């Protein structure tokens, strides 16, 4: 199957290895991965900052980057997928190609589990065998795209770690893009609740599907000197557990 990788700007600029692992996984599952060079960003940062005009220009470039391509558009970042699938209808709904492109956008786990029908793709935790991990549900997968269950399905097939339950796992970690900069103390308190609950549950790592949440939680854990590894789900889906 031909698949278009939507790498997202944050992965491009800060987490290129997440993009590479996404490609490796998709190719291992038999997909032919293409990467349209015209892509930059979905426009969400500007929209959530109250600048829809700026967001619209970038969203249009997103639509144009993918309009002439074929197959599902897959991203390792649920929030950007939610923006494209839900937000673009309001923002660039009048663009003739927008609806067609939006309907093709899929998050990595949702694509693998629901479209490819692969519920177990293996994988090994990239750390000590038997590591207890906490799962952080990405808000925009859980409540937006609706594929949080698919991500957990893939997690269940990973060896070398086990999931420890944490209370109120549905709560936001406090990243929220612009929110993290504009309301930093509340944002940090929200991260602390996540981190403290993970530590109390005995977890040695937090795993999620949102590079924004990861950057926020890892940055906060480092600031507080909390010894918790932070991983994207796709880090755990590498067959050999090596990063």
């Amino acid at each position, binding site marked *: 199957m031909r698949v278009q990788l939507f790498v997202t700007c944050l992965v491009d600029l800060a987490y290129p290895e997440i993009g590479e692992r996404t490609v490796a996984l998709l190719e291992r599952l038999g997909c032919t991965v293409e990467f349209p060079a015209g892509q930059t960003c979905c426009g969400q940062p500007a929209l959530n900052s109250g600048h829809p005009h700026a967001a619209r220009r970038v969203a249009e470039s997103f639509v144009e980057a993918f309009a002439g391509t074929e197959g599902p558009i897959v991203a390792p970042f649920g929030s950007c997928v939610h923006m494209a699938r839900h937000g673009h209808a309001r923002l660039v709904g009048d663009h003739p190609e927008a609806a067609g492109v939006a309907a093709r956008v899929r998050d990595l786990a949702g694509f693998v589990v629901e479209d490819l029908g692969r519920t177990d793709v293996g994988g090994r935790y990239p750390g000590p065998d038997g590591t207890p991990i906490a799962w952080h549900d990405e808000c925009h997968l859980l409540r937006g795209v609706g594929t949080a269950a698919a991500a957990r399905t893939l997690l269940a097939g990973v060896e070398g770690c086990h999931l420890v339950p944490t209370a109120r796992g549905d*709560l936001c970690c406090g990243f929220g893009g612009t929110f993290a900069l504009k*309301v930093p103390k*509340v944002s940090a308190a929200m991260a602390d609740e996540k981190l403290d609950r993970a530590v109390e549950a005995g977890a040695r790592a937090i795993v999620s599907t949102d590079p924004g949440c990861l950057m926020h939680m890892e940055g906060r854990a480092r600031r507080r000197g909390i010894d918790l590894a932070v991983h994207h789900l796709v880090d755990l889906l590498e067959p050999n557990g090596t990063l």
Partner: protein
Amino acid sequence: VSGRVVHPPRREPDPAITPTLHRAAGNWAANRVRAKETVDWDEWRDRATAIRTDAIAELPELLARFEARLTEAGGTVHHAATAEEARAAVVRICAERGLRRALKGKSMLSEELGLNAALAEAGIEAVETDLGEWIVQLLGDRPSHILAPAVHLSAEQVAALFSERSGETFDAADTGRLVGYARKALRESFLAGDVGITGANFAVAETGTLVLVESEGNLRMATSLPLVHIAVVGIEKLLRDWDGAAHMIEMLPLAAHGRRSATYTSLITGPARDGDDGPEEVHVVLVDDGRSALRGTELESALHCIRCGACLYACPVYRQVGGHAYGAAYSGPIGAVITPALEGMKPPTGELPWMSSLCGACTEACPVGIPLDDHLVTLRAWAQRHDGDAAERTFWEAWARLWSRPASYRAMAATAGRVLQPLWRAAGGGAGGWLRRAPGPLSGWTDERDARPPAAEPFHARWKHARGR
């Protein structure tokens, strides 16, 4: 002065109240699980949404019908376009009849209007009769939750208040005795009151009926003991008919507490009939105060709100900051939407839409389908248009120019890694290059977290090198 806005939002957690809030929010979350076991939640929410959408769409017609039916039933309708008119109407009704001791039923609209201050100014003593609201009133405090006004207070604080007020000693653990004291004090007020002033949860146009739901029975007493009952009702509370009202009367407690029935549900259609006990006069003050201006806008569905409080308990920001942080009568996600919307973005209300991480928990919790996170995004744009920061606007315009041109974006990305990595290191980036202090607007990030360095080579460049296309 309207009671709607008190101060700019406080963007800080309040560790003194978070344990209490987390417990209350946890109870609510458990109740929501029960609600979903009780009914087909999605179906119930969709039906409630349809009922509210219809009511707001047909509001002028329903208001006229409500007034006609209530007038036929012997009640009197007053119209208030503004908060000032609403306060004046209530004071006038009291003054004309020489009413001086008001029994208040908990009403968010009353908070919004700043009604108690207006009554006090007119020499009318107003006693809040909802236990939480009464405690808040005694402390000279403000309610911090739509349904649970005193949720920010501990039992210890209440015991201290009652001890000071009575000269007796109360133990925080002895809730029975605390409630007993409140009941006795409130009973004395009930017997002395000469006018009941309440809000209403719904107003049913079909029959001109007010619907009041509550836990404590104080509303029933405040609307049946005095000879005059005044209800202040936002115009958005209208419902078309009893078919819809029956659903909403179950939906409200279900969303709020996970139960299909409130402890007390009172249906009031005009004054007491011949020979019945109850008020001789029922006055309904229908308050607009910015509401009708929202009809036909992107935010119209904010008028669906039935004030169940679910979005507050669901919100991860509210649970850190508490209701007072919002600086307004309405708090939580719905407060961050309707306060600026009703105030026409008047400063400082434009700051409220940022009191959200846009996680969508509010929208998920809402029993009447209000897309609260979408509304918050819409209001951020309204706020930026109204009194946005010029430097910020310039930044986003430059960002859009660069990021809407893929070649420029790629050149920027390739340079950023090369330039920023050494800068990150020079600025003291520690292990792995994480930075502890960043300048300018990025300091909002590094005040609380370390900053990850940008990749030396972005994905775009890596792909090109590896795949040559």
